[in-house]
Protein backbone atom coordinates (compact mmCIF):
# COMPACT_ATOMS: atom_id res chain seq x y z
CA UNK A 1 0.00 0.00 0.00
CA UNK A 2 2.39 2.65 -1.14
CA UNK A 3 0.47 5.85 -0.78
CA UNK A 4 1.76 9.37 -0.83
CA UNK A 5 1.92 10.78 2.68
CA UNK A 6 3.30 13.93 4.16
CA UNK A 7 6.72 13.94 5.76
CA UNK A 8 5.11 14.85 9.04
CA UNK A 9 2.87 11.80 8.98
CA UNK A 10 5.84 9.65 8.07
CA UNK A 11 7.82 11.04 10.99
CA UNK A 12 5.01 10.22 13.41
CA UNK A 13 4.71 6.69 12.02
CA UNK A 14 8.43 6.23 12.36
CA UNK A 15 8.48 7.41 15.96
CA UNK A 16 5.58 5.19 17.06
CA UNK A 17 6.87 2.16 15.20
CA UNK A 18 10.37 2.48 16.64
CA UNK A 19 9.07 2.88 20.17
CA UNK A 20 6.83 -0.17 19.84
CA UNK A 21 9.58 -2.16 18.11
CA UNK A 22 12.14 -1.38 20.78
CA UNK A 23 9.62 -2.20 23.50
CA UNK A 24 9.00 -5.63 22.04
CA UNK A 25 12.70 -6.19 21.47
CA UNK A 26 13.63 -4.92 24.92
CA UNK A 27 13.77 -8.27 26.79
CA UNK A 28 16.29 -9.53 24.25
CA UNK A 29 18.29 -6.30 24.36
CA UNK A 30 18.24 -6.33 28.15
CA UNK A 31 19.47 -9.93 28.22
CA UNK A 32 22.34 -9.13 25.90
CA UNK A 33 23.30 -6.01 27.90
CA UNK A 34 23.08 -7.83 31.23
CA UNK A 35 25.39 -10.54 29.98
CA UNK A 36 28.19 -7.96 29.92
CA UNK A 37 27.60 -6.72 33.48
CA UNK A 38 28.94 -7.93 36.79
CA UNK A 39 26.43 -9.74 39.02
CA UNK A 40 26.16 -6.67 41.25
CA UNK A 41 25.38 -4.37 38.34
CA UNK A 42 22.93 -6.87 36.93
CA UNK A 43 20.60 -6.46 39.91
CA UNK A 44 21.37 -2.82 40.63
CA UNK A 45 18.46 -0.55 41.51
CA UNK A 46 18.02 1.78 39.66
CA UNK A 47 19.08 -0.45 36.78
CA UNK A 48 22.13 0.59 34.79
CA UNK A 49 21.51 0.70 31.10
CA UNK A 50 24.66 1.37 29.11
CA UNK A 51 27.15 2.98 31.46
CA UNK A 52 28.67 0.10 33.34
CA UNK A 53 32.02 -1.66 33.19
CA UNK A 54 31.59 -3.96 30.24
CA UNK A 55 33.03 -7.36 31.03
CA UNK A 56 33.31 -10.72 29.28
CA UNK A 57 33.79 -12.52 32.56
CA UNK A 58 30.33 -14.18 32.55
CA UNK A 59 30.92 -15.85 29.24
CA UNK A 60 34.12 -17.37 30.60
CA UNK A 61 32.41 -18.58 33.76
CA UNK A 62 29.48 -20.16 31.91
CA UNK A 63 31.80 -22.01 29.55
CA UNK A 64 34.02 -23.30 32.33
CA UNK A 65 31.32 -24.34 34.69
CA UNK A 66 28.88 -26.09 32.43
CA UNK A 67 30.82 -27.48 29.55
CA UNK A 68 28.81 -25.18 27.34
CA UNK A 69 30.50 -26.39 24.18
CA UNK A 70 29.01 -29.85 24.56
CA UNK A 71 25.47 -28.47 24.72
CA UNK A 72 26.19 -26.21 21.77
CA UNK A 73 27.57 -29.10 19.75
CA UNK A 74 24.48 -31.17 20.61
CA UNK A 75 22.21 -28.36 19.43
CA UNK A 76 24.11 -28.06 16.17
CA UNK A 77 24.12 -31.82 15.72
CA UNK A 78 20.39 -32.23 16.46
CA UNK A 79 19.19 -29.26 14.42
CA UNK A 80 21.58 -29.89 11.55
CA UNK A 81 21.20 -33.65 11.49
CA UNK A 82 17.42 -33.67 11.68
CA UNK A 83 17.10 -30.99 9.00
CA UNK A 84 19.49 -32.78 6.65
CA UNK A 85 17.82 -36.15 7.13
CA UNK A 86 14.42 -34.54 6.64
CA UNK A 87 15.53 -32.88 3.41
CA UNK A 88 16.90 -36.16 2.04
CA UNK A 89 13.57 -37.87 2.63
CA UNK A 90 11.38 -34.92 1.68
CA UNK A 91 12.93 -33.71 -1.58
CA UNK A 92 11.96 -36.78 -3.63
CA UNK A 93 8.49 -36.83 -2.07
CA UNK A 94 7.83 -33.15 -2.66
CA UNK A 95 9.28 -33.39 -6.15
CA UNK A 96 6.98 -36.20 -7.16
CA UNK A 97 3.93 -34.54 -5.65
CA UNK A 98 4.65 -31.24 -7.38
CA UNK A 99 5.49 -32.60 -10.82
CA UNK A 100 3.63 -35.89 -11.08
CA UNK A 101 0.47 -35.07 -9.17
CA UNK A 102 -2.14 -37.78 -8.87
CA UNK A 103 -5.63 -37.80 -7.48
CA UNK A 104 -4.29 -38.70 -4.07
CA UNK A 105 -1.59 -36.02 -3.85
CA UNK A 106 -3.82 -33.58 -2.02
CA UNK A 107 -4.96 -36.22 0.46
CA UNK A 108 -1.39 -37.28 1.15
CA UNK A 109 -0.30 -33.69 1.73
CA UNK A 110 -3.16 -33.04 4.11
CA UNK A 111 -2.56 -36.31 5.90
CA UNK A 112 1.10 -35.39 6.40
CA UNK A 113 -0.02 -32.07 7.83
CA UNK A 114 -2.37 -33.89 10.20
CA UNK A 115 0.53 -35.84 11.71
CA UNK A 116 2.04 -32.49 12.66
CA UNK A 117 -1.13 -31.70 14.59
CA UNK A 118 -0.74 -34.73 16.83
CA UNK A 119 -0.07 -33.34 20.32
CA UNK A 120 3.35 -34.56 21.42
CA UNK A 121 2.20 -35.18 24.96
CA UNK A 122 -0.33 -37.72 23.67
CA UNK A 123 2.46 -39.99 22.49
CA UNK A 124 5.05 -39.03 25.12
CA UNK A 125 5.06 -42.33 26.97
CA UNK A 126 5.19 -44.62 23.93
CA UNK A 127 8.17 -42.73 22.53
CA UNK A 128 9.82 -42.62 25.94
CA UNK A 129 9.26 -46.37 26.38
CA UNK A 130 10.51 -47.21 22.90
CA UNK A 131 13.65 -45.19 23.59
CA UNK A 132 14.26 -47.08 26.82
CA UNK A 133 13.62 -50.48 25.25
CA UNK A 134 15.90 -49.71 22.33
CA UNK A 135 18.50 -48.29 24.72
CA UNK A 136 18.50 -44.90 23.01
CA UNK A 137 17.19 -42.62 25.74
CA UNK A 138 19.50 -39.60 25.91
CA UNK A 139 20.98 -40.60 22.56
CA UNK A 140 21.72 -37.99 19.90
CA UNK A 141 20.84 -40.15 16.94
CA UNK A 142 17.45 -41.10 18.35
CA UNK A 143 16.65 -37.44 18.91
CA UNK A 144 17.75 -36.58 15.39
CA UNK A 145 15.16 -39.06 14.13
CA UNK A 146 12.42 -37.73 16.42
CA UNK A 147 13.08 -34.10 15.50
CA UNK A 148 13.22 -35.04 11.82
CA UNK A 149 9.84 -36.73 12.10
CA UNK A 150 8.11 -33.83 13.81
CA UNK A 151 9.42 -31.40 11.19
CA UNK A 152 9.09 -33.63 8.14
CA UNK A 153 5.52 -32.47 7.34
CA UNK A 154 6.66 -28.83 7.32
CA UNK A 155 9.68 -29.67 5.18
CA UNK A 156 7.57 -31.56 2.63
CA UNK A 157 5.00 -28.75 2.52
CA UNK A 158 7.53 -25.98 2.11
CA UNK A 159 9.40 -27.82 -0.63
CA UNK A 160 6.12 -28.66 -2.32
CA UNK A 161 5.05 -25.00 -2.47
CA UNK A 162 8.47 -23.99 -3.81
CA UNK A 163 8.56 -26.77 -6.40
CA UNK A 164 5.03 -25.91 -7.48
CA UNK A 165 6.31 -22.52 -8.59
CA UNK A 166 8.77 -24.04 -11.03
CA UNK A 167 6.99 -23.82 -14.40
CA UNK A 168 6.04 -27.20 -15.83
CA UNK A 169 6.82 -26.06 -19.39
CA UNK A 170 10.52 -26.19 -18.61
CA UNK A 171 10.18 -29.84 -17.75
CA UNK A 172 8.26 -30.56 -20.92
CA UNK A 173 10.89 -28.81 -22.97
CA UNK A 174 13.60 -30.84 -21.30
CA UNK A 175 11.69 -34.05 -21.94
CA UNK A 176 11.23 -33.08 -25.55
CA UNK A 177 14.98 -32.70 -25.83
CA UNK A 178 15.30 -36.25 -24.63
CA UNK A 179 16.11 -35.69 -20.98
CA UNK A 180 15.42 -38.70 -18.80
CA UNK A 181 14.29 -38.61 -15.22
CA UNK A 182 17.89 -38.40 -14.03
CA UNK A 183 18.90 -35.53 -16.32
CA UNK A 184 15.67 -33.74 -15.57
CA UNK A 185 16.37 -33.91 -11.87
CA UNK A 186 20.05 -33.06 -12.06
CA UNK A 187 20.31 -30.36 -14.70
CA UNK A 188 16.88 -28.76 -14.86
CA UNK A 189 15.21 -28.96 -11.51
CA UNK A 190 18.06 -28.88 -9.05
CA UNK A 191 19.39 -25.46 -10.06
CA UNK A 192 15.88 -24.02 -9.91
CA UNK A 193 15.06 -25.73 -6.65
CA UNK A 194 18.15 -24.73 -4.71
CA UNK A 195 16.79 -21.42 -3.33
CA UNK A 196 13.64 -23.13 -2.07
CA UNK A 197 15.61 -25.95 -0.50
CA UNK A 198 17.94 -23.46 1.16
CA UNK A 199 15.01 -21.55 2.67
CA UNK A 200 13.48 -24.78 3.89
CA UNK A 201 16.75 -25.83 5.51
CA UNK A 202 17.03 -22.46 7.21
CA UNK A 203 13.57 -22.42 8.75
CA UNK A 204 13.69 -26.03 9.86
CA UNK A 205 17.10 -25.61 11.42
CA UNK A 206 15.58 -22.82 13.51
CA UNK A 207 12.52 -24.87 14.47
CA UNK A 208 14.66 -27.85 15.47
CA UNK A 209 17.09 -25.66 17.40
CA UNK A 210 14.25 -24.24 19.50
CA UNK A 211 12.29 -27.46 19.96
CA UNK A 212 11.69 -27.83 23.68
CA UNK A 213 9.41 -30.76 24.35
CA UNK A 214 11.26 -33.81 23.12
CA UNK A 215 14.68 -32.33 23.81
CA UNK A 216 13.67 -31.78 27.44
CA UNK A 217 11.97 -35.12 27.95
CA UNK A 218 14.26 -37.49 26.06
CA UNK A 219 17.65 -36.22 27.19
CA UNK A 220 19.53 -35.97 30.46
CA UNK A 221 23.28 -35.66 30.02
CA UNK A 222 24.82 -36.95 26.81
CA UNK A 223 22.39 -35.66 24.21
CA UNK A 224 21.13 -32.54 25.99
CA UNK A 225 21.12 -29.48 23.72
CA UNK A 226 20.98 -25.80 24.68
CA UNK A 227 17.24 -25.88 25.45
CA UNK A 228 17.95 -28.31 28.29
CA UNK A 229 21.09 -26.42 29.32
CA UNK A 230 19.05 -23.26 29.81
CA UNK A 231 16.26 -25.14 31.58
CA UNK A 232 18.85 -26.25 34.16
CA UNK A 233 19.15 -22.57 35.08
CA UNK A 234 15.59 -22.61 36.42
CA UNK A 235 17.16 -23.76 39.68
CA UNK A 236 18.46 -21.01 42.00
CA UNK A 237 21.43 -20.74 39.68
CA UNK A 238 19.19 -18.65 37.45
CA UNK A 239 19.23 -15.90 40.04
CA UNK A 240 22.74 -15.04 38.88
CA UNK A 241 21.33 -12.73 36.25
CA UNK A 242 24.56 -11.93 34.47
CA UNK A 243 25.47 -15.57 34.01
CA UNK A 244 21.94 -16.50 33.02
CA UNK A 245 22.08 -13.71 30.45
CA UNK A 246 25.41 -14.84 29.08
CA UNK A 247 24.15 -18.41 28.73
CA UNK A 248 20.91 -17.18 27.11
CA UNK A 249 22.69 -14.87 24.72
CA UNK A 250 24.92 -17.68 23.56
CA UNK A 251 21.90 -19.91 23.04
CA UNK A 252 19.85 -17.46 20.99
CA UNK A 253 22.45 -15.39 19.12
CA UNK A 254 23.05 -17.84 16.26
CA UNK A 255 19.31 -18.25 15.69
CA UNK A 256 18.57 -14.52 15.83
CA UNK A 257 21.04 -14.06 13.01
CA UNK A 258 19.60 -16.92 10.98
CA UNK A 259 16.11 -15.67 11.75
CA UNK A 260 17.02 -12.35 10.17
CA UNK A 261 17.27 -14.15 6.83
CA UNK A 262 14.21 -16.31 7.20
CA UNK A 263 11.35 -13.88 7.83
CA UNK A 264 9.68 -14.56 4.51
CA UNK A 265 10.03 -18.32 4.80
CA UNK A 266 8.43 -18.18 8.21
CA UNK A 267 5.07 -17.25 6.73
CA UNK A 268 5.25 -19.86 4.00
CA UNK A 269 6.59 -22.58 6.26
CA UNK A 270 4.17 -22.18 9.11
CA UNK A 271 0.94 -21.44 7.25
CA UNK A 272 1.36 -24.27 4.77
CA UNK A 273 0.89 -21.96 1.83
CA UNK A 274 -2.46 -20.72 3.08
CA UNK A 275 -1.25 -17.12 3.39
CA UNK A 276 0.81 -15.62 0.63
Amino acid sequence: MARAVTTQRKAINTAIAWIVGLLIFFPILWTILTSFKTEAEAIANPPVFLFFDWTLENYGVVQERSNYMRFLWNSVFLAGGSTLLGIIIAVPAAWSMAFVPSKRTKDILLWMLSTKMLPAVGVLYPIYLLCIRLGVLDNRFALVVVLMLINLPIIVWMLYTYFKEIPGEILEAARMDGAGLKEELLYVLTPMAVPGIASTILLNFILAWNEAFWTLNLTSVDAAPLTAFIASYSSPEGLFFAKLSAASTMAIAPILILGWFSQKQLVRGLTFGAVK
Partner: protein
Amino acid sequence: MATQSSRSAARIMMAPAVFVLLVWMLVPLCMTLWFSFRDYRPLRGGDLGFVWFDNFVRFVTSSSFWPAIFTTLLIVGGVLLVSIIFGVLLAMLLDQPMWGQGVVRILVIAPFFVMPTVSALVWKNMFMDPTNGLFAHLWRAFGADPVVWLSDVPIFSLILIISWQWLPFATLILLTAFQSLDSEQLEAAEMDGASPLARFFYIALPHLSRAITIVILIQTIFLLAVFAEIFVTTGGAFGTRTLTYLIYQRVLESQNVGLGSAGGVYAIILANIVAIFLMRIVGKNLDR
Protein backbone atom coordinates in the same frame (compact mmCIF):
# COMPACT_ATOMS: atom_id res chain seq x y z
CA MET B 1 1.06 -35.74 -19.29
CA ALA B 2 2.82 -38.05 -16.88
CA THR B 3 3.87 -41.36 -18.30
CA GLN B 4 3.34 -44.70 -16.63
CA SER B 5 7.00 -44.99 -15.71
CA SER B 6 7.24 -41.53 -14.21
CA ARG B 7 4.13 -42.33 -12.22
CA SER B 8 5.63 -45.40 -10.64
CA ALA B 9 8.90 -43.52 -10.11
CA ALA B 10 6.91 -40.85 -8.31
CA ARG B 11 5.37 -43.46 -6.07
CA ILE B 12 8.78 -44.83 -5.14
CA MET B 13 10.07 -41.33 -4.40
CA MET B 14 7.16 -40.64 -2.12
CA ALA B 15 7.39 -43.97 -0.32
CA PRO B 16 10.08 -43.17 2.30
CA ALA B 17 8.37 -40.01 3.51
CA VAL B 18 4.96 -41.64 3.65
CA PHE B 19 6.35 -44.75 5.32
CA VAL B 20 8.25 -43.02 8.13
CA LEU B 21 5.37 -40.69 8.90
CA LEU B 22 2.91 -43.58 8.90
CA VAL B 23 5.07 -45.51 11.37
CA TRP B 24 5.63 -42.36 13.45
CA MET B 25 1.90 -41.77 13.63
CA LEU B 26 0.51 -45.28 14.00
CA VAL B 27 2.92 -47.01 16.37
CA PRO B 28 2.84 -44.49 19.25
CA LEU B 29 -0.86 -43.86 18.70
CA CYS B 30 -1.70 -47.55 19.01
CA MET B 31 0.53 -47.84 22.07
CA THR B 32 -1.17 -44.87 23.72
CA LEU B 33 -4.56 -46.40 23.01
CA TRP B 34 -3.41 -49.77 24.37
CA PHE B 35 -2.02 -48.26 27.57
CA SER B 36 -5.11 -46.13 28.05
CA PHE B 37 -7.19 -49.27 28.53
CA ARG B 38 -4.78 -50.80 31.04
CA ASP B 39 -3.85 -50.23 34.65
CA TYR B 40 -0.16 -49.66 34.05
CA ARG B 41 2.14 -48.16 36.70
CA PRO B 42 5.77 -49.01 36.01
CA LEU B 43 6.89 -48.12 39.54
CA ARG B 44 4.00 -49.72 41.42
CA GLY B 45 3.26 -53.23 40.25
CA GLY B 46 3.73 -52.72 36.52
CA ASP B 47 1.04 -53.74 34.09
CA LEU B 48 -2.02 -54.90 36.01
CA GLY B 49 -4.18 -55.80 33.03
CA PHE B 50 -7.20 -54.34 31.30
CA VAL B 51 -9.44 -51.88 33.08
CA TRP B 52 -11.09 -50.74 29.84
CA PHE B 53 -12.68 -47.33 30.22
CA ASP B 54 -11.79 -46.84 33.89
CA ASN B 55 -8.83 -44.58 33.04
CA PHE B 56 -10.97 -42.39 30.82
CA VAL B 57 -13.57 -41.97 33.55
CA ARG B 58 -10.97 -41.44 36.27
CA PHE B 59 -9.12 -38.84 34.22
CA VAL B 60 -12.17 -36.62 33.75
CA THR B 61 -13.52 -37.14 37.26
CA SER B 62 -10.23 -36.39 39.02
CA SER B 63 -10.19 -33.10 40.89
CA SER B 64 -7.41 -31.71 38.70
CA PHE B 65 -9.18 -32.23 35.37
CA TRP B 66 -11.55 -29.27 35.22
CA PRO B 67 -9.04 -26.78 36.65
CA ALA B 68 -6.58 -27.96 34.00
CA ILE B 69 -9.16 -27.48 31.24
CA PHE B 70 -10.01 -24.06 32.62
CA THR B 71 -6.33 -23.06 32.76
CA THR B 72 -5.77 -24.32 29.24
CA LEU B 73 -8.71 -22.30 27.92
CA LEU B 74 -7.58 -19.19 29.77
CA ILE B 75 -4.03 -19.39 28.45
CA VAL B 76 -4.96 -20.30 24.88
CA GLY B 77 -7.76 -17.74 24.80
CA GLY B 78 -5.70 -15.03 26.44
CA VAL B 79 -2.73 -15.44 24.14
CA LEU B 80 -5.00 -15.58 21.07
CA LEU B 81 -6.77 -12.40 22.12
CA VAL B 82 -3.54 -10.51 22.77
CA SER B 83 -1.76 -11.72 19.65
CA ILE B 84 -4.70 -11.07 17.32
CA ILE B 85 -5.61 -7.62 18.62
CA PHE B 86 -2.04 -6.36 18.92
CA GLY B 87 -1.06 -8.31 15.82
CA VAL B 88 -3.61 -6.42 13.71
CA LEU B 89 -2.55 -3.09 15.19
CA LEU B 90 1.13 -3.84 14.73
CA ALA B 91 0.65 -5.07 11.19
CA MET B 92 -1.25 -1.87 10.36
CA LEU B 93 1.53 0.19 11.89
CA LEU B 94 4.30 -1.67 10.08
CA ASP B 95 2.44 -1.34 6.80
CA GLN B 96 2.64 2.47 6.97
CA PRO B 97 5.45 4.26 5.20
CA MET B 98 8.29 5.06 7.60
CA TRP B 99 12.04 5.26 7.92
CA GLY B 100 13.86 2.07 8.88
CA GLN B 101 10.89 -0.20 8.24
CA GLY B 102 13.09 -3.26 7.74
CA VAL B 103 14.85 -2.80 11.07
CA VAL B 104 11.61 -2.26 13.00
CA ARG B 105 10.16 -5.39 11.46
CA ILE B 106 13.14 -7.40 12.64
CA LEU B 107 12.85 -5.97 16.15
CA VAL B 108 9.21 -7.04 16.26
CA ILE B 109 9.80 -10.52 14.85
CA ALA B 110 12.87 -11.33 16.94
CA PRO B 111 11.06 -12.86 19.97
CA PHE B 112 9.79 -15.68 17.78
CA PHE B 113 13.34 -16.91 17.32
CA VAL B 114 14.15 -17.04 21.01
CA MET B 115 14.00 -20.58 22.32
CA PRO B 116 11.09 -21.15 24.72
CA THR B 117 13.26 -22.07 27.70
CA VAL B 118 15.27 -18.87 27.31
CA SER B 119 12.30 -16.55 27.02
CA ALA B 120 10.54 -18.19 29.96
CA LEU B 121 13.61 -17.94 32.19
CA VAL B 122 14.53 -14.41 31.17
CA TRP B 123 11.00 -13.23 31.94
CA LYS B 124 10.78 -15.24 35.14
CA ASN B 125 14.05 -14.06 36.64
CA MET B 126 15.09 -10.79 35.09
CA PHE B 127 11.66 -9.22 34.82
CA MET B 128 9.29 -10.96 37.23
CA ASP B 129 11.60 -11.75 40.12
CA PRO B 130 10.01 -10.06 43.16
CA THR B 131 13.28 -8.77 44.64
CA ASN B 132 15.67 -8.09 41.77
CA GLY B 133 13.46 -8.19 38.71
CA LEU B 134 13.07 -5.14 36.52
CA PHE B 135 9.35 -4.95 37.25
CA ALA B 136 10.07 -4.96 40.99
CA HIS B 137 12.49 -2.04 40.52
CA LEU B 138 9.87 -0.22 38.48
CA TRP B 139 7.13 -0.81 41.03
CA ARG B 140 9.37 0.40 43.87
CA ALA B 141 10.28 3.49 41.88
CA PHE B 142 6.60 4.39 42.02
CA GLY B 143 6.40 3.50 45.68
CA ALA B 144 4.34 0.36 45.15
CA ASP B 145 4.96 -3.08 46.58
CA PRO B 146 6.50 -5.41 44.00
CA VAL B 147 4.14 -8.05 42.63
CA VAL B 148 5.13 -11.69 43.04
CA TRP B 149 4.15 -12.30 39.45
CA LEU B 150 4.35 -16.05 39.08
CA SER B 151 2.50 -16.91 42.27
CA ASP B 152 0.13 -13.94 42.64
CA VAL B 153 -1.01 -13.65 39.02
CA PRO B 154 0.43 -16.83 37.49
CA ILE B 155 -1.95 -17.15 34.55
CA PHE B 156 -1.55 -13.51 33.60
CA SER B 157 2.23 -13.84 33.77
CA LEU B 158 2.21 -16.92 31.55
CA ILE B 159 -0.09 -15.23 29.06
CA LEU B 160 2.34 -12.30 28.98
CA ILE B 161 5.36 -14.55 28.35
CA ILE B 162 3.68 -16.72 25.74
CA SER B 163 2.07 -13.75 23.99
CA TRP B 164 5.47 -12.14 23.69
CA GLN B 165 6.64 -15.24 21.85
CA TRP B 166 3.63 -15.55 19.56
CA LEU B 167 2.78 -11.92 18.79
CA PRO B 168 5.55 -11.79 16.15
CA PHE B 169 4.07 -14.77 14.34
CA ALA B 170 0.59 -13.24 14.21
CA THR B 171 2.01 -9.86 13.19
CA LEU B 172 4.09 -11.30 10.39
CA ILE B 173 1.20 -13.24 8.87
CA LEU B 174 -1.25 -10.37 9.21
CA LEU B 175 1.32 -8.02 7.71
CA THR B 176 1.68 -10.34 4.74
CA ALA B 177 -2.09 -10.28 4.36
CA PHE B 178 -2.19 -6.48 4.69
CA GLN B 179 0.36 -6.09 1.95
CA SER B 180 -1.89 -7.91 -0.50
CA LEU B 181 -4.71 -5.47 0.22
CA ASP B 182 -5.76 -3.53 -2.83
CA SER B 183 -4.72 0.08 -2.20
CA GLU B 184 -6.91 1.39 -5.00
CA GLN B 185 -9.96 0.07 -3.25
CA LEU B 186 -8.95 1.92 -0.11
CA GLU B 187 -8.29 5.12 -2.00
CA ALA B 188 -11.64 4.88 -3.74
CA ALA B 189 -13.36 4.47 -0.39
CA GLU B 190 -11.41 7.41 0.98
CA MET B 191 -12.52 9.59 -1.92
CA ASP B 192 -16.09 8.52 -1.41
CA GLY B 193 -15.79 9.92 2.09
CA ALA B 194 -15.42 6.73 4.13
CA SER B 195 -13.89 7.47 7.54
CA PRO B 196 -10.68 5.70 8.57
CA LEU B 197 -12.73 3.60 10.99
CA ALA B 198 -15.17 2.62 8.28
CA ARG B 199 -12.33 1.79 5.93
CA PHE B 200 -10.82 -0.44 8.60
CA PHE B 201 -14.02 -2.29 9.48
CA TYR B 202 -15.52 -2.62 6.00
CA ILE B 203 -12.46 -3.13 3.82
CA ALA B 204 -9.34 -4.08 5.79
CA LEU B 205 -10.89 -6.39 8.38
CA PRO B 206 -12.90 -8.53 5.91
CA HIS B 207 -9.75 -8.83 3.81
CA LEU B 208 -7.85 -10.00 6.88
CA SER B 209 -10.48 -12.46 8.07
CA ARG B 210 -8.88 -15.43 6.36
CA ALA B 211 -5.43 -14.66 7.70
CA ILE B 212 -6.90 -14.15 11.17
CA THR B 213 -8.65 -17.51 10.99
CA ILE B 214 -5.40 -19.18 10.02
CA VAL B 215 -3.48 -17.49 12.82
CA ILE B 216 -6.13 -18.62 15.31
CA LEU B 217 -6.08 -22.22 14.13
CA ILE B 218 -2.31 -22.62 13.88
CA GLN B 219 -1.64 -20.86 17.17
CA THR B 220 -4.31 -22.89 18.93
CA ILE B 221 -2.59 -26.11 17.93
CA PHE B 222 0.78 -24.86 19.16
CA LEU B 223 -0.65 -23.23 22.28
CA LEU B 224 -2.49 -26.37 23.36
CA ALA B 225 0.94 -28.02 23.41
CA VAL B 226 2.75 -25.31 25.40
CA PHE B 227 5.15 -27.09 27.72
CA ALA B 228 8.61 -25.58 28.24
CA GLU B 229 7.26 -22.21 29.42
CA ILE B 230 5.37 -23.88 32.28
CA PHE B 231 8.14 -26.39 32.95
CA VAL B 232 10.74 -23.74 33.75
CA THR B 233 8.55 -21.08 35.37
CA THR B 234 6.02 -22.61 37.74
CA GLY B 235 6.38 -26.33 37.11
CA GLY B 236 2.60 -26.55 37.08
CA ALA B 237 2.17 -24.94 40.52
CA PHE B 238 -0.16 -22.03 41.38
CA GLY B 239 -2.93 -23.31 39.12
CA THR B 240 -0.92 -23.18 35.93
CA ARG B 241 -1.35 -26.86 35.16
CA THR B 242 -2.69 -27.11 31.64
CA LEU B 243 -4.05 -30.27 30.06
CA THR B 244 -0.68 -30.92 28.42
CA TYR B 245 1.15 -30.42 31.68
CA LEU B 246 -1.31 -32.58 33.61
CA ILE B 247 -0.77 -35.46 31.20
CA TYR B 248 3.00 -34.99 31.40
CA GLN B 249 2.84 -35.18 35.19
CA ARG B 250 0.61 -38.27 35.16
CA VAL B 251 2.84 -40.09 32.69
CA LEU B 252 6.39 -39.17 33.68
CA GLU B 253 6.24 -37.72 37.19
CA SER B 254 3.74 -40.01 38.91
CA GLN B 255 4.27 -42.78 36.34
CA ASN B 256 0.59 -43.63 36.06
CA VAL B 257 0.82 -44.50 32.42
CA GLY B 258 -2.70 -45.84 32.00
CA LEU B 259 -4.31 -42.70 33.36
CA GLY B 260 -1.92 -40.40 31.51
CA SER B 261 -2.51 -42.21 28.25
CA ALA B 262 -6.26 -41.78 28.61
CA GLY B 263 -5.54 -38.07 29.03
CA GLY B 264 -3.35 -38.25 25.94
CA VAL B 265 -6.23 -39.66 23.94
CA TYR B 266 -8.40 -36.73 25.07
CA ALA B 267 -5.67 -34.29 24.03
CA ILE B 268 -5.39 -35.93 20.63
CA ILE B 269 -9.14 -35.69 20.09
CA LEU B 270 -9.15 -32.04 21.16
CA ALA B 271 -6.28 -31.14 18.81
CA ASN B 272 -8.00 -32.99 15.99
CA ILE B 273 -11.16 -30.95 16.34
CA VAL B 274 -9.11 -27.80 15.75
CA ALA B 275 -7.04 -29.45 13.05
CA ILE B 276 -10.10 -30.39 10.98
CA PHE B 277 -11.00 -26.73 10.51
CA LEU B 278 -7.43 -25.79 9.66
CA MET B 279 -7.12 -28.61 7.14
CA ARG B 280 -10.31 -27.56 5.44
CA ILE B 281 -8.93 -24.07 4.78
CA VAL B 282 -5.53 -25.36 3.73
CA GLY B 283 -7.17 -27.97 1.50
CA LYS B 284 -9.33 -25.38 -0.23
CA ASN B 285 -6.23 -23.36 -0.89
CA LEU B 286 -4.56 -26.32 -2.57
CA ASP B 287 -7.25 -26.50 -5.21
CA ARG B 288 -6.61 -23.01 -6.43
